[in-house]
């Protein structure tokens, strides 16, 4: 599309279209919607992680005043299945409990209080079975089987290069095992949906969700309806981060079954504690490394083995593992690579999508090993990365794919180092004896934008653009706003393409009856895929708009330019007519003012056996450098500053872009330092914000951002996704900064005070006090709240 002489809103900071209603409290989320006769749903869940079910007692629940329906597996009209990829998860349990939180029954009642009281009174007759909670132990012979087929779900691999030769040429070899914990999404709006039945023929679901088409498929399956009879409208969604990718299908399917059972609208909003207990999590993983480098500091080989705790159901775990697998060595040039990523069933909460999708864990391990290598080679960590990072000459990634130019990893590294003042910081003397120590650490990410080759059949996107008779514009897309700014991005892209002010464009939340299946809003593909579909729709609209404008202007249609709210004659900017006048004229002539748009990602080749080829079309690259102070006595980490340099291709909406980077950094910092899922026999022991600590305003670091615009990427106007690259390197950078500050290696995430104190060992300032004393006294002396 030719660029107009009048610059549009692209890259600007105009007001987000959803901000004013949200700040005034007038945006209606699911919990704010009510209908006459509406019932409230609740779920009765299993308290054990592994059991045989011999029966479910419902009489007491049914007797609660206000209860209209109590439903079990036998009452489901269609199929009792909710898995996105594998059919291993029932909506309601039949004979077997595999995790704490498996649903025994669901209830609909006239008040939420009655519904939850009834749910509490549902009694499952459960015979406990052996359970397995450690993914490594789950792979051993004789481990209790979570499903009949065994606990190893799948292994993904990368096999590339001559390992024997590389081993012989390596002067330094680092081996390490990393224990990396999971993470709770902690979106502020709990999961919720509203199911509105029309007899038993059709149903509308209004859901807080990232993926309305997933919800549509899940509801159609449990009700036994065709897809066209299930309409899913995305409600304004109060945060997702991956937690509202697959999980919302479960409450939606429950509400749908109850709505059909009662013939009444049913609203299902999860209380926070159950939301945290039942919903998917970032995977806990164990990563083993053996990496080698030459005396020159150049990487020779990387061996990575990851064991990923999928929990009791696969959900999206295989897809998460697919991404983790090919992200295992970061943005580094490595001649010989061996990666194995195992997906393993346990009786824990199930892992799923979470911003970064398996990449944060393997990135954390990769960046930790890079720092260990730097120490072994007596090289500055920045220098070691300069010697190994991909650039225009060395463009081959983990899978053997050659990246298109420009490859700006080195640029990002240098820009972040400059922002952080790396050289000055390291030239300054630092007191090693004081209790509070300072450190600086680096994290880099190479992020494959959009869906992996394995999911490319889903990688398409639909849009509808309607030019109204008054010149205002309706845009509908299939990808969702969950806070990240997709409405703002779509508005900006449509306004830019139509040459109008963004305020003229109204982007409405997705509805499965207005656009075609556009796949999930994940993988940093929202603005990219909806944007390209919008551009396609605008192109088609202009085949009808331009001739009308040309008539009004008295020029050939090929000479029509759009910009600044006007259609003008190219090269003669003073001959112009308002776009709104063109719209009015189109309406007067009864010319079709609606156009659809479509985009699909480019087909790629990838060999799943060897993990080689092109898993993604193109990549985002970023570098973040964290400066921390660590209280060596208490083990408390304070992230002072994060400097972030991101290649985003092209900025679409600057506030939304910065918001993604700032939010990703703080969420990544939380995962790396304070957020710890405490599982006791598969039960989450800290399902609340008092015991599960997400960062507050008082924890937020100073954030410096350098935006690198390489252009050229395949996204709208050359943009690429930033939602996930913003989070992935943060925890790694923080870990490396803490380790530098203390002179220790920490191989466990999060870096909670007990973990930091333990890592200090003999270097702890009070170690001399503890020396030769019984452990209990040592525990008493340490002010840190040790893990029991």
């Amino acid at each position, binding site marked *: 599309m030719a660029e107009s002489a009048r610059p549009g809103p692209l890259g600007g900071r105009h007001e987000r279209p959803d901000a004013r209603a*949200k700040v005034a409290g007038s945006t209606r989320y699911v919990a704010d919607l009510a209908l006459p006769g509406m019932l409230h749903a609740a779920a009765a869940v299993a308290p054990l992680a592994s059991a045989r079910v011999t029966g479910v007692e419902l009489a007491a629940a049914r007797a609660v005043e206000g209860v209209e329906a109590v439903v079990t597996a036998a009452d489901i009209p269609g199929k009792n299945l909710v898995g996105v990829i594998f059919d291993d998860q029932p909506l309601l349990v039949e004979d077997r409990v595999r995790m704490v939180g498996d649903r025994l029954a669901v209830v609909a009642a006239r008040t939420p209080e009655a519904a939850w009281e009834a749910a509490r009174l549902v009694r499952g007759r459960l015979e406990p079975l052996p359970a397995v909670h450690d993914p490594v132990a789950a792979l051993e012979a004789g481990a209790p089987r979570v499903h009949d087929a065994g606990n190893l779900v799948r292994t993904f691999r990368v096999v590339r290069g001559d390992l024997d030769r590389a081993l012989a040429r390596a002067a330094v070899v680092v081996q390490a095992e990393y224990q990396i914990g999971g993470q709770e999404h902690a979106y502020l709006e709990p999961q919720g949906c509203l199911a509105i039945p029309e007899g038993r023929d059709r149903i509308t679901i209004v859901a807080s969700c990232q993926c309305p088409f997933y919800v549509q498929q899940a509801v159609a399956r449990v009700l036994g309806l065709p897809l066209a009879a299930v309409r899913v409208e995305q409600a304004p969604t109060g945060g997702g981060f991956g937690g509202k990718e697959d999980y919302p299908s479960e409450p939606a399917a429950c509400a749908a079954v109850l709505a059909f059972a009662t013939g009444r609208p049913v609203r299902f909003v999860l209380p926070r504690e159950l939301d945290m207990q039942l919903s998917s999590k970032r995977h806990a993983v164990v990563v083993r490394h053996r990496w080698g480098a030459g005396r020159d500091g150049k990487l020779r080989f990387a061996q990575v083995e990851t064991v990923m705790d999928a929990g009791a159901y696969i959900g999206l775990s295989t897809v998460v593992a697919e991404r983790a697998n090919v992200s295992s060595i970061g943005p580094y040039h490595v001649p010989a690579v061996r990666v194995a990523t195992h997906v393993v069933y346990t009786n824990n909460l199930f892992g799923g999508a979470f911003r970064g999708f398996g990449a944060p864990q393997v990135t954390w391990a990769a960046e930790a090993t890079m720092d260990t290598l730097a120490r072994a080679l007596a090289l500055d960590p920045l220098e070691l990365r300069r010697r190994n990072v991909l650039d225009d000459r060395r463009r081959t990634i983990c899978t053997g794919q050659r990246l298109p130019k420009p490859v700006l990893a080195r640029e990002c590294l240098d820009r972040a180092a400059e922002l952080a003042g790396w050289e000055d910081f390291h030239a300054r003397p630092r007191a090693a004896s004081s209790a509070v120590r300072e450190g600086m650490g680096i994290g880099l990410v190479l992020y494959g934008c959009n869906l992996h080759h394995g999911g490319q059949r889903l990688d398409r996107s639909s849009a509808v653009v309607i030019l109204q008779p008054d010149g205002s514009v309706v845009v509908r897309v299939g990808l969702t706003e*969950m806070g990240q700014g997709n409405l703002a991005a779509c508005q900006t892209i449509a306004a830019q393409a139509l040459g109008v002010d963004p305020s003229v464009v109204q982007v409405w939340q997705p509805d499965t009856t207005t656009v075609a299946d556009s796949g999930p809003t994940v993988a940093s593909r929202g603005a990219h895929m909806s944007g390209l579909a919008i551009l396609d729709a605008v192109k088609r609209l202009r085949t009808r708009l331009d001739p009308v404008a040309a008539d009004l202007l008295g020029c050939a249609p090929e000479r029509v330019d759009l910009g600044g709210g006007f259609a003008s004659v190219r090269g003669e900017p003073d001959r112009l007519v308002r776009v709104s006048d063109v719209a009015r004229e189109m309406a007067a002539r009864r010319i079709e003012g609606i156009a659809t748009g479509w985009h699909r990602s480019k087909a790629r080749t990838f060999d799943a056996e060897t993990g080689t080829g092109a898993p993604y079309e193109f990549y985002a690259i970023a570098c973040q450098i964290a400066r921390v102070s660590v209280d060596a006595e208490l083990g408390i980490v304070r992230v002072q500053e994060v400097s972030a340099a991101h290649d985003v291709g092209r900025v679409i909406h600057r506030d939304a872009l910065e918001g993604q980077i700032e*939010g990703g950094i703080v969420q990544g910092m939380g995962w790396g330092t304070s957020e710890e899922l405490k599982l006791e026999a598969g039960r989450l022991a800290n399902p609340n914000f008092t015991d599960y600590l997400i960062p507050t*305003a008082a924890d937020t670091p100073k954030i410096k951002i350098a935006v690198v615009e390489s252009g050229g990427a395949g996204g709208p106007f050359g943009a690429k996704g930033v939602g996930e690259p913003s989070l992935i390197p943060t925890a790694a950078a923080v870990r490396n900064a803490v380790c530098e500050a203390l002179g220790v290696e920490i191989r466990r995430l999060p870096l909670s005070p007990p973990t930091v104190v333990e890592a200090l060992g003999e270097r702890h300032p009070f170690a001399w006090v503890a020396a030769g004393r019984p452990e209990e006294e040592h525990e008493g002396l340490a002010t840190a709240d040790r893990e029991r």
Partner: protein
Amino acid sequence: MPEPVRVTLTLNGERRTFHVPPGRRLLDMLREDAGLTGTKEGCGAGECGTCTVLLDGSPVTSCLVLAASVDGHDVVTVEGLARAGRLHPFQEALVSLGGVQCGFCTPGIAVTGAAVLARHESDPAEHARLLSGNLCRCTGYTKVLGALRAAATAGEENRG
């Protein structure tokens, strides 16, 4: 069923009376009885701050306040922050400086921020501390604190 309790209060500047069950939370009275759904429920345990309202000018988590206890008091919700059809200066700053993402924590943040500004607090470190009871998972707080700082500065200039 226990007898309903009569609660008369000043709600967003208007004198209102409700008859509520004795155990009703202020949050539910606002959302269900008064229809003011701008106040959100994020945790129901006083941890997240999404249900923050002003009780006699001070921010409280309305999920932990009994409706019956506000009889005779003054309550302001997010819907009551606007003056003469114009958003509160902190709300305006959140909109214009990119401080809004998913929006679910935003009403609570707007209410707490309004209380901070009413105290004429201008120290950024103090802003961060006072906002630390309002969790936000999207923004990383950077632009939220920036908006509060901007509103505080503008307020000082107006007074000066």
